[in-house]
């Protein structure tokens, strides 16, 4: 069994590698063949120039500010927003389990705001608060709060009655039930909420930064936009790669380990 599994995994990896190499070859051929005439160098910079731009972004950066600074700023906004958003989602969903009125109102809010793109809120938020780093954090919170809440609420409602009765039988009440039964029993939902929430937050963050970068604390979205306005297309592509790498690190470095340590370990999901 294990042998077959290992072989299948190796084959899957090989397929992925071949696919990526193939894409890169096609890219390089397109770049070198100058298919788009004079524009070719701008639309399809060679892999070599993208690679050099990748390094240059970190060493020289834009106007002397390394891309590290941009990345760190974005990460700070993201982390702040995620913490506030996830915290609020748990608090509000928890309150919804206690009070029917809160439940009704909160469900309505989730239904309405989940459909409202953060960037559409941007003009309103700027008019009210002005252009501050807090605005970007606000948008990240908006991006993560609603999908996370939807999942946590659904998860709490799907907790099997038997776990609750077993818990009550052991003398558990209110907050003990919330932390001891509701949250662990809803972990499958919570983890999928984290995945959706993080993805929305990441996208929301980049869009917000692209639309209005804050000079005092510039983020990665602003960086890519600056590259576009300056026609530094190789740098632009290099930044795209950085954005993808950050996404992969979060997925494989944070989310997957969380899943492995909880729902997979407990046999609640395959």
């Amino acid at each position: 069994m294990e042998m077959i599994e290992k072989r299948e995994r190796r084959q899957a990896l090989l397929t992925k590698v071949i696919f990526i190499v193939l894409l890169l070859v096609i890219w390089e051929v397109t770049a070198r063949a100058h298919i788009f005439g004079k524009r070719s160098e701008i639309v399809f910079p060679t892999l070599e120039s993208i690679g050099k731009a990748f390094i240059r972004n970190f060493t020289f950066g834009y106007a002397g500010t390394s891309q590290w600074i941009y990345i760190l700023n974005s990460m700070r906004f993201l982390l702040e927003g995620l913490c506030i958003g996830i915290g609020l989602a748990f608090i509000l969903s928890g309150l919804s389990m206690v009070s029917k009125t809160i439940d009704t109102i909160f469900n309505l809010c989730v239904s309405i705001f989940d459909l409202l793109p953060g960037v559409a809120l941007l003009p309103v938020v700027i008019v009210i608060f002005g252009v501050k780093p807090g605005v970007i954090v606000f948008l990240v919170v908006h991006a993560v709060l609603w999908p996370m809440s939807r999942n946590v609420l659904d998860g709490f409602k799907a907790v099997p009655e038997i776990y609750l009765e077993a818990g009550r039988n052991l003398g558990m009440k209110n907050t003990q039930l919330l932390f001891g039964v509701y949250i662990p029993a809803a972990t499958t939902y919570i983890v999928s909420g984290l995945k959706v929430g993080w993805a929305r937050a990441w996208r929301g963050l980049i869009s917000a930064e692209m639309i209005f970068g804050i000079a005092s604390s510039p983020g990665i979205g602003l960086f890519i936009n600056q590259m576009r306005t300056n026609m530094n297309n190789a740098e632009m592509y290099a930044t795209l790669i950085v954005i993808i790498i950050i996404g992969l690190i979060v997925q494989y470095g944070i989310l997957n380990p969380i899943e492995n340590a909880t729902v997979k370990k407990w046999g609640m999901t395959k």
Partner: protein
Amino acid sequence: MSAILEIRGLTKAFLNTGKKDKTEVLNNLNLSVEPSEFLCILGPSGCGKTTMLRCVAGFESYEGDVLVNGKLETGPGTDRIMIFQDFNQLFPWKTVEKNIQYGLKLQGIKDKAELKRISDSALKKVKLDGYQNFYPYQLSGGMKQRVAIAKAFALKPSIILMDEPFAALDAMTRTKLQKELMQLHEQEDCTILFITHNILEAISLGTRIIVLQTGGDIVVDKKNPIPKPVTPDSPGYGPFWTELHNALYA
């Protein structure tokens, strides 16, 4: 000897959904259970057996009084531990050992060595020594029920309430678990209320057997006259079986 469990005038009605009328499941049920009794409750589906047990456990609201050791009960508590038929009554996010220790921790036992000692001895009693660190999904149905039994006994409740805990098991596992439960009942000196549809199971396990009919009407209430271990060959088995069978299918 004073009763460990006293049920007085227990009445329970469920509101019919969408209608204004009610269905009365239990009507003025009175029952008194002595300490160390193994009370088996037989009855057709819908007679209110499970509802009665759930009222005693404190999971339902009801009219009437439930007294344990002379004290009026108003909600769930660890003096009455319920073992369900559903195999998924253990918390899947806790290991076997932690499932057993959880209730003890809530009771205020903080010492890790003490917790370990109690859970180890409970697991030994249900022949699951060595499964301490398994997660429930890694166990078979019979093993899960064993853990549930170990968990209940570890808490040393006054009464253990069992709602057809072996009904979903295969015949061989069922017989094994019945034997183990009987041994535990003798060793641990506890009171058990055990619901079943199976007359043989009731005669094999119970020291006292009652038969409920619709509305929670107790139509038979007898000490079990058959000496243990019970086989179909035991003297008096046939007539007792017939009596219970007739009361059940009346």
